[in-house]
């Protein structure tokens, strides 16, 4: 089929789904609206499959499908087309988005079955997919920005889906505004890059970037990419703009799975990968990215340890995993970042859906202290969740192992990386293993702490099918990117992903040949760290559930600080938001009400006072007026005659 037609189908079918469901938004039939929405995404998935198949059929260096629909805007030299292109990177993304997306849609039919706003929900979800596809496929930064803001908008709508709850509505707003901070930086980045390159077209910029010399340590490209990265920290929940993501768990759980785990939050990583020729020429930016990523990975993981809300744990885990991805791209391992993005999409979506299934079963209960021993009630959920767990803590040969390990290795090995980064990453990995195991233990294993009134049950088939599919993907997903060192030892299993991405990824400059022994050793260290901490966690939460409390009590201040999320929200409120609001009030009172208006009052009072003085002359006596006129004429005449 024609590429532009396919592309149009790919893009527009979710939009059509959105429109259909949007028009019948009051209709509460979950099956029908869910069917429409799922079908819409599925159609997208199919067309993206066809497109990717076409792409594979092309010669490796020319793999690109570019479709331009119309000129969006053109002002002087600034011309932006509504154009989209698929290359190796975006191919992965569209498959993840539409594939995982359709699974999550399917899951939602079951999950949202009893909600009154189900049709609206599916409409939003479809709109999200549409925007996400625009983000991924856009051929210029501005087109990407359209999707960028669009997904933020959908995220806002879906987080605040149950808007009658004040907290949830506030969470949506928080997400949007935090994202907006990033978006503003993204805009600045675009301005800087446009000023540098005279274009915003991604391919053109990528082509121009290597030939452009960076003038200073904060040259135009560094500045531009730095701004873009700030944009990415907003979207991908990195320090300092990560605060919205945990709150975003207020939305329905499938939403968390799709948007806040699998797709939207990875947009920042994707953007950097897509612009990798640009970023690679700005080493300072890369350094910042890597540091922020590593810090976020550890920071978020540490908070994750202390959370009691099943979704919050997963949320901080997401933040942490995103940190890994940024660490990867920061050290120049774009392929590893993409790889982790993909695997993460599988297992985190799985875990979110699993948690959704649990929450569904527990009648909207999210506190893991009130769960436990769910294994026997929900075998399928438990099983799939288990796969997700092993994947995320990095047990070979599950998906997470390969991707995470490659990241850790590259952070050590890359000339852009450093051992310090590896250490941070490893600590993060250990923490990840700890809190994920804790989650596993408290939810599925151990004694049941389920309240009497609740009768947990396995979710319906509609919900378990996506779980199973994703579970399988969590297991096998990593096999496309088996590192060369392992592949070699297992008999020349190729690193498919790396090959695939090779033409579009700029190599890290000055990359030395890998020392296999070192790689093996580091791999061993991280796996064993993960295993040990997982074991500790198992011991803590299944064998002797009182120990964690003791430890927590012994380091009470630290524990409190961590469990209160390092008081970052309070910090933001205390130092930025409240002063802003109070300051605005004062500003308004001072400038508008007390200064400018006062000035006008003073002037008007002057005029009025002057009028009052002259008013005394107005006696109302007509003849007196006439006399004054007469006297005036006499004076005037005398002057005229005297002259």
């Amino acid at each position, binding site marked *: 089929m024609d590429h532009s037609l396919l592309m149009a189908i790919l893009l527009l079918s979710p939009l059509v789904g959105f429109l259909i469901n949007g028009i019948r938004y*009051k209709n509460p039939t979950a099956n029908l609206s869910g069917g429409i929405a799922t079908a819409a995404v599925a159609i997208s998935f199919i067309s993206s499959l066809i497109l990717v198949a076409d792409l594979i059929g092309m010669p490796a260096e020319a793999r690109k499908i570019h479709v331009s629909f119309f000129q969006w*805007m053109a002002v002087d030299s600034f011309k932006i087309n509504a154009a989209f292109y698929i290359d190796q990177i975006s191919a992965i993304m569209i498959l993840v988005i539409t594939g995982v997306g359709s699974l999550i849609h399917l899951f939602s039919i079951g999950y949202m079955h009893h909600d009154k706003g189900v049709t609206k929900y599916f409409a939003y979800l479809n709109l999200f997919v549409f925007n996400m596809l625009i983000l991924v496929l856009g051929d210029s930064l501005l087109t990407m920005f359209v999707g960028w*803001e669009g997904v933020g908008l959908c995220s806002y709508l879906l987080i605040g889906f149950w*808007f009658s709850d004040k907290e949830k509505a506030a969470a949506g707003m928080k997400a*949007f505004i935090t994202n907006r901070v990033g978006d503003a*930086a993204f805009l600045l980045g675009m301005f800087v890059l446009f000023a540098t390159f005279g274009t915003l077209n991604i391919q053109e910029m990528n082509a121009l970037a290597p030939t452009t010399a960076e003038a200073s340590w904060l040259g135009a490209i560094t500045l531009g990419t730095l701004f873009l990265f700030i944009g990415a920290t907003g979207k991908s929940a990195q320090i300092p703009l990560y605060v919205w993501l945990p709150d975003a768990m207020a939305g329905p759980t499938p939403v968390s799975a799709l948007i806040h785990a699998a797709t939207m939050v990875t947009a920042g990583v994707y953007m950097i990968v897509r612009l990798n020729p640009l970023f690679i020429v700005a080493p300072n930016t890369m350094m910042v990215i890597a540091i922020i990523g590593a810090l976020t990975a550890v920071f978020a993981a540490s908070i994750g340890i202390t959370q009691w809300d099943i979704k919050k744990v997963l949320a901080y885990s997401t933040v942490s995993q995103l940190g890994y991805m940024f660490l990867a791209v920061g050290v120049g391992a774009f392929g590893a970042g993409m790889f982790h993005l993909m695997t993460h999409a599988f297992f985190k979506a799985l875990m979110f859906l699993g948690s959704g299934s649990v929450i569904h079963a527990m009648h909207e209960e999210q506190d893991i202290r009130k769960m436990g021993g769910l294994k026997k009630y929900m075998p399928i959920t438990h099983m799939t969740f288990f796969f997700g767990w092993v994947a995320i803590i990095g047990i070979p040969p599950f998906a997470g192992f390969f991707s995470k390990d490659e990241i850790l290795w590259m952070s050590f090995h890359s000339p852009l990386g450093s051992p310090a980064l590896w250490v941070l990453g490893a600590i993060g990995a250990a923490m990840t293993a700890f809190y994920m195991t804790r989650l596993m233990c408290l939810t599925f294993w151990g004694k049941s702490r389920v309240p009497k009134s609740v009768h947990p049950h396995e979710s319906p088939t509609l919900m378990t099918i996506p779980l199973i599919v994703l579970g399988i993907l969590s297991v096998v997903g990593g096999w496309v990117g088996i590192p060369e060192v392992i592949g070699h030892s297992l008999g020349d299993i190729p690193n498919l992903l790396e090959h695939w991405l090779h033409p579009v990824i700029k190599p890290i400059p000055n990359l030395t040949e890998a020392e296999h022994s070192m790689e093996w050793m580091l791999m061993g260290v991280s796996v064993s760290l993960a295993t040990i901490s997982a074991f500790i966690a198992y011991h803590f939460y299944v064998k002797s559930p009182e120990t964690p409390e003791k430890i927590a009590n012994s380091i009470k201040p630290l524990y409190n600080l961590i469990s209160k999320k390092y008081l970052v929200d309070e910090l933001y409120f205390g130092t930025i938001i409240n002063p802003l609001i109070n300051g605005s009030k004062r500003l308004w009172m001072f400038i508008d009400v007390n200064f400018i208006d006062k000035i006008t009052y003073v002037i008007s009072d002057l005029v009025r006072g002057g009028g009052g003085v002259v008013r005394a002359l107005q006696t109302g006596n007509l003849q007196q007026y006439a006399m004054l006129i007469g006297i005036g004429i006499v004076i005037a005449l005398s002057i005229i005659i005297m002259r």
Partner: protein
Amino acid sequence: MLLSTILFLPLIFALIVLIWPQDKTIRHVAFGLSIVEFIISLIVLKDFDASSAQLQMIEKHMWIERFGIQYFLGVDGISLWLVLLTTFLTPIIILASWNSIDTKIKGFHAAMFVLQTAMLGTFLAIDAIFFYVFWELSLIPMYFIVGIWGGARRIYATIKFFIFTMIGSVLMLVAIIYLMYLTQQASGHMSASLLEFYKVKIPFVGGSILNLQSLLFFAFSLAFAIKVPVWPVHTWLPDAHVEAPTPGSVILAGVMLKMGTYCFLRWVIPLFPDAAEYWAWLFLSLGVIGIIYGALVAMIQPDIKKLVAYSSVSHMGYIIVGMFVFNHFGITGSLYQMLNHGVSTGALFLLIGMIYERTHSREISKYGGLAGVLPIFTIFFFIITLSSIAVPMTNGFIGEFLILLGLHKAQPVYVYFAVTGVVLGAAYMLWMFKRVFFGEKGELVKDEKHPLKDLSVREIAVLVPLVVLVFWMGLFPNHFLDLTKSSVNHLVTNKNKYYLEIKE
């Protein structure tokens, strides 16, 4: 004849409305007439030659020969869309005022039509005195609209509005007369034609305000800045908006503020290029301060209408900034933002008017949870909110993006401040949206005895054209930009020796 027809048809309509015998059908008549006007104005669009930067469809007759004052109308790429915006908004406003204006209907519609003539005249007049007549004329119907159909403190608001605007206008009149005198010095015969003004070389000396060009520049600028309004002469706007009836607010935000910004492009920048360039820092600063200040102050307003009014201050700040960067992006963006602001802020005021009709309150704190009660209303409000905070694919984004792009190209320092407006804009709008539409039902919303009714067909009909325009302008900006391109190009490239030719 076309422009004259468009210009004076509303006056005739005003007369028709005044002598129309039946009070019941007067709204229908006015609506029909305004539609007729709109359709006629579409002919301008059809006949407009997009490839030309010249003044088109001119009509020129001597009016007062002794002073060279002419009856001189013309349209080019800069004024075209504003004319259409005016004719487009009027039927919508009339339709929207169906319920909200229930006293002195006849007078209201007559005032509306007179106002339309005045605004169109401001956009179309090329002769200074002729222009000034319309400029001042626009005050009078607005004064009555606010003063008669307004809220509780309407008299205060009208007087403030009137006096603020008058102060500026008077200085402008002096400047116009002085320019006429200069034309006489230069060419030997007095003329008030703008085209003649363009030819005059006004001496400029940098470094001081006390030179001819700077003084004239400020005399004009003050008049327009008050109308825009530029910070710090904006304080009339919130009061006027809050006290004005819905249609008044819409027309005020939708078109009247554009009169100020349009005149910057038509009068100030081409007439005083050196001074404009020299003083650009001032206007850029004021614009940026306006953006931030408007947004900050909007955030803490307890009254929805006041919030939107202050958001206007913020948005108009963008427009001012865009014009004073003197490049394609900025000026195109400004022009576009004028239309956007007309559409989206106009729609916001309409929506606020609709909810006000139902609850008779604009206190944000008394609302809450409206989304559950009035879903259709919420959808419309949300779309317009998106447009207002410049989400891509809506119209607001194009304008804001181009302005910031232009600002970055010309003065990168300012853009770092201006871009906070993007964040703050989202903050105040969404915070307001959250407090009004989300959360628990507020005291006005949960009143069981008087359940709120969702939008009627008429109200939807009012909003649909605006929403369509929001997306149309957001998705296909080229449809609009193509027509202004050559004029903007001409302005940017010939800024320092601006001239306008007449297209025969």
